[in-house]
Each structure stands twice: as structure tokens, then as C-alpha cells.
């Protein structure tokens, strides 16, 4: 039988030390982490971006990723969407007793892979183990620090009339991939989570244009919610074209079946950029060269009409309001 995590692994005992030394340190090794002092200590200068997020995804393994990859990419992406170059992460585990060491090792390995891919170091961490039933297998919190290069000013409040809206690729992949694994909803779908670190894509975009006004990764609440946030924060209107929004066929099919609108389904490896009109094509071309942006598309523009609202031109030639996500996504019944 697989070795499992026991309450004793979180007690500060020899077992705790062994867990850290055997299961966390070797894959994540770097000089700052290896010191094992109470804090990681390092020098820093310039404008900082600092963010934190907790990850409670269920199931912890899903097509295209796992909770570890998600915890690294999610926090890296939050930094990148502020225009920051992510540097360091903290990593805090809350483990429900009974998680197997095999599962833990897989997750730590994918944390390491995601951190390496994005040139980010994990420099401090913590592990707690709680009684069965007090957590759902594994919760992870990551915080991240990044540095914002000079001259970069990105905010959801910066959209200007005439700007173009660029979406980096297909929407809804993550939400549908995770949903397909849930109890009571199991269905087989060929789509994988798009979970990915976007910091390199963002830095290429920022090198290409100094007039990227807003960046955001449309996670929970999906594309619709992100666009509504921009419209409200910047006090502008947004018009998008249904035709231009890329959606995988399998995601569309699953959405048809479940009664979801892909506009509201979560993404973990996509971004929305609001870019000055003159620079939009240039930024788009650069994005298309990146592995995480090859499906990018200009999906709409910023207007001075219907301030605070998002309007979509439908394929049929009508237009309708795209509101924020209301409540929880639930499967429909008939």
C-alpha cells in the first residue's frame, strides 16, 4: 500500500523534518530555500508587486494539470497581469491526513516543473497536516513577489476609448476539464486544462508595446466577468464580437450539454489585454509566436457608449448584454 501522510507529519517532529528534507527540498532546491531559516532573506530594489492566492480545486488531479501546477501558475499570472516580472513564491500546504506520499510527490514535481518553466524560485514554505474531514485532501496557498520594470503602468482602470481587446486563446478549457472529473457529472471530454504560466508571454508583449493598458487572466467568472471588471473600473463601454472568440469544439459541446455559456467558464492559462488601437496588430502578432498565445485574437474594442457595460454582437447579427457571472455555475436540467 502507498505510504500516506499522517498527522505526525505536521507535528514538527522528526517525521515533519523528514518530509521536508525528502519530499520538498530535493525537487525545489535553491540556495534561499535550502537555508531552512524562519524567513527567506534577500535583497530587492524597485517597485514591487505582491500577491497571494489559495487553491482548493477538487479533484486535485485533472486533465492537463493538478493543484500544484495551478498554485504556481495562478500566482505567477497574478503578478504578470500587473506587469511584474515574478521572482519568488512562498508555498504553504494544508494536507488532510491520508493523502498518499505518491500523490504529494507528483504534486511537488509539477510545482517544480512550473516554477522552472517560468524562472521563479520557491524560497519559503510551510506544511500543516489536519484531521481527516478538516480539509479536502490538499489545500495550497502561494504568495508571490515580482518586480515591475520602469515605465509600466497596468491597471483595470486604464482602458481608453478606441483601445482594442485581445484574448490570448480559447476560453473555458480549464473549467470544463475540471468539471468533467466531478462526481455526478463525470463525462469524457478531450479537452485539457489550459493551466500555464503566462509571465514570459506578458514580458514579450510589454517589450513589443508600451501602450498595453490593462491585463487580466480570466479565471473564475470567465471572460465575461473580466471584461465587466474592465468596463466598470475604467468607466467605459466594451463591445465584443462572438465570432472572434475562440472556443474548442469539445468545450462548446460540453457547454451545450451542461447548459453553460463558455464566456463564464474558468481559464487558468489565458489573458485579456486592452491595447492602444495602433499597437494592437503588433502585439497580436507577437502573441501568436508564443506557445501560450498562438490562438490569440482581437475580440473587440473599448467605446464611450453604454459605460460600465459589455455588449456582444452575436453571430446572428443582433447584440446583447454580457453581464457578470451570477452565482454558481450549475448544470441545467432540461
Amino acid at each position, binding site marked *: 500500500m502507498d505510504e500516506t501522510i499522517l498527522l505526525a507529519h505536521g507535528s514538527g517532529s522528526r517525521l515533519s523534518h523528514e518530509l521536508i528534507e525528502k519530499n520538498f527540498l530535493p525537487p525545489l532546491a535553491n540556495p534561499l530555500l535550502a537555508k531552512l531559516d524562519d524567513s527567506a532573506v534577500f535583497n530587492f530594489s524597485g517597485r514591487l508587486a505582491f500577491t497571494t492566492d489559495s487553491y482548493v480545486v477538487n479533484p486535485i488531479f485533472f486533465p492537463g494539470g493538478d493543484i500544484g501546477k495551478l498554485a504556481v501558475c495562478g500566482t505567477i499570472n497574478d503578478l504578470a497581469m500587473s506587469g511584474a516580472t515574478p521572482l519568488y513564491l512562498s508555498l504553504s500546504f494544508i494536507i488532510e491526513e491520508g493523502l498518499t506520499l505518491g500523490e504529494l510527490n507528483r504534486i511537488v514535481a509539477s510545482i517544480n516543473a512550473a516554477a522552472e518553466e517560468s524562472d521563479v524560485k520557491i524560497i519559503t514554505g510551510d506544511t500543516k497536516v489536519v484531521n481527516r474531514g478538516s480539509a479536502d485532501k490538499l489545500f495550497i496557498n502561494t504568495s508571490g513577489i515580482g518586480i515591475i520594470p520602469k515605465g509600466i503602468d497596468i491597471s483595470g482602470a486604464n482602458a481608453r476609448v478606441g483601445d482594442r481587446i485581445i484574448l490570448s486563446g480559447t476560453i473555458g478549457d480549464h473549467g470544463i476539464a475540471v468539471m468533467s472529473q466531478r*462526481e*455526478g*457529472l463525470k463525462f469524457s471530454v478531450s479537452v485539457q486544462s489550459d493551466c500555464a504560466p503566462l509571465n514570459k508571454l506578458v514580458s514579450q508583449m510589454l517589450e513589443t508595446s508600451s501602450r498595453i493598458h490593462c491585463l487580466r487572466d480570466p479565471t473564475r467568472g470567465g471572460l465575461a466577468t473580466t471584461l465587466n471588471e474592465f468596463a466598470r473600473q475604467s468607466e467605459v463601454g466594451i463591445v465584443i464580437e462572438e465570432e472572434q472568440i475562440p472556443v474548442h*469544439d469539445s468545450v*462548446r*459541446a460540453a457547454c*451545450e450539454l*451542461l*447548459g453553460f*455559456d463558455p464566456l463564464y467558464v474558468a481559464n487558468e492559462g489565458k489573458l485579456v489585454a486592452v491595447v492602444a488601437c495602433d499597437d494592437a496588430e503588433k502585439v497580436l502578432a507577437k502573441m501568436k509566436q508564443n506557445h501560450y498565445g498562438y490562438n490569440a485574437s482581437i475580440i473587440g474594442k473599448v467605446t464611450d457608449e453604454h459605460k460600465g*457595460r459589455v455588449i456582444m454582437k*452575436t*453571430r*446572428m*447579427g*443582433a*447584440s*446583447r*448584454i454580457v*453581464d457578470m457571472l*451570477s*452565482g454558481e455555475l*450549475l*448544470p*441545467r*436540467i*432540461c
Partner: protein
Amino acid sequence: MKFIDEYRDVELGGKLVAKIERLSTRPVRLMEFCGGHTVATMRNGIRQLLPATVEMLSGPGCPVCVTANADIDKSIALACLPDVIVTTFGDMMKVPGSYSSLQRARAEMADIRIVYSTQDALQIARDNPAKSVIFIGIGFETTAPTIAAAVLQAEQQRIENFFVLCLLKLCPPIMKVLLDLGEIKLDGIVCPGHVSAIIGSRPYEFIPRDYGVACVISGFEPLDILLSVAMLVEQVEDGKPKVEIAYRRGVKADGNRQALGLMEKVFEVSSADWRGIGIVPASGLKLRKEYERFDADQAFAIEMKPVREAKGCICGDILRGVKTPADCKLFRRVCSPENPVGPCMVSSEGACAAYYQYGVDYG
């Protein structure tokens, strides 16, 4: 995506709109009976595409919306019994009953699980033999055969801890009630597609015959709906109302005999309690005597507090097509998908939720 994109073709859509404009010389009032049609209409902006002569009303065809408060209360009471697992379609979770909702009961530790089909509920029953698993059986003729099949399976496989709270309702009888009430003058009905896939087109024949109202059975894609509207307008203009099928890929005149056979075997027609309308004789289904032991109503004793209706909520009027969500004083001010007062705001196929989500009241 094959079998979908064909029915969203922009060019064909434009041709159908042009045809409707050409045919329509006088005002017609049509009702899309089905909540699925309401959502598809709003989501695709179809009302904007239609000429001013064509008025579209939303009807009562959303099973969550027409579930009476008393039945919501009963579902919650069942969920609060010890050693019971209640299984339900997701849309039911947030519907407010007189005092609580399934969602709130779940937060207060009742074991309530969302399922996508009766098969999932059966599986939960197999996996939890020490518990009683109750499926909240709401729906129309579309859902009834799947519940019938689950009951038969439970019988064959001797799954003795599976129960159904049978709240099934029938569409043609309630259409008759709406027409008899005479509160709204209709020229045509966009008849439900999925319901008709089961019952066929014949059960609607009394509508043109006795009421002079045109009927076209429609699918759920934009072209399906535009085609159905064109056919309805044509019937009205010709003055020859009849039942036609626009949704030919899904519906045959005789319906689905196997599904009807299952329903017939397990259920018998009974009265049903409709929100906004009340108890209507012969408009619902209940388990036949042979299958009574699966009936949650009979198997569990529950105490019910008096039913209360939400003050100011006009869901009942909206379901009868007498009012629209925009007429409701609570709409958007008090009642929203986050804080729904009535069921039409909860269900994804409810008229209020569709108006709210797709901003129809903004024009």
C-alpha cells in the same frame, strides 16, 4: 461544430428574418412555451431581429419555475430527515421555499447532492445502502421517461433505498389552462422541442382546432426558432392554424414510443400543483400503485409548516404570460440571481434570469 453550426448560419438566419418581414402584415402575439426557447431567443438577440409586428411572450415551460412552494418545502423537509440523501438537478438548489432553500439546508448539514441524471442518483443509492436516497423528480414529459427507467431499474436490481419525490408535470394540459384562462390573447405557440420528441405532435392538435391558435414545434438553435416564427406567422397570415413540426430532426408525429411506454408503465396521470396557477387536475404524473414503494411522499412522514409566498413576487403572472419581468417591482432592485425572490430568477431557463442575464429590459 457539426450539427450545431449549421443551425446558427448567419446567412440563412438573415434570409429567414427577411421572410418573416415579408410575410408579416399585421401584429401577431406568439408565446415561446419553453424556458429553453426563452434563453435561446435572448442569448441570440432574436427579438431584436424580428419586425415590430411580431411580439414574443415567455411561457411556463421551465420545470423549476413552475414547482410550487409547497413542493420546495417538502423537498427541504425530506433532506432534513436523518439518514437521507437528497439528489437533485442543480437548478433546484437555490430556489427559495417558504422558509429556506435546498442550498441553505445543505449548508446546515443536510446531505444534498447535485446530479445530472437519475442514473447518478441510482449509483449514489447503490453506494450508500444504509441511507435512503431520494431523487427530487421535477420535470416535464422530457424527464419523465428517465425517472420511469430509474424506478424500473431500482425494482429489477432490488435497490430498496431509492425513492422519488414525483413532481412531474405535463405540457399540453397546462397549455389548455392558459388558453381557457383567456388572460392573454395568443395567435401562436412555439411548442417545446424536447417534450415533443417524447410525446410527438398529436397532443397539441386541440389547440388550433378548439382555440384557433397556431402551433409549431421548434428546436433550440437560432435558425430553429426563426424558422418556427416564420411558419407561425405564415399560418396566422393564411388564417389556417394547425400543428407543424419545424424541429424535424428531433420530433416525429407519434413521438418516442419506447419512452411513452416506460412512462405509461410506471406513472399515471394525476393532479399537479403549478406555481402561479394552482392545483390543476390531470396535469401531472404520479407513480402507479405497483411502484408506490418508491414514492417518497408515502415512504416518509414529514411535518410541514404552513406555506408562505414571497411578498411582491409576480413569478406566477410571468409564468402565465400576463406580465413580463420588467413589470415586477422587485426585478433587479431586490430580486437578482444572487438573491432570488422567486424561482424564475433562479433557474437558468427562467424568464427573469434570462431577462436579467441578457439585459433585455435595457432594450
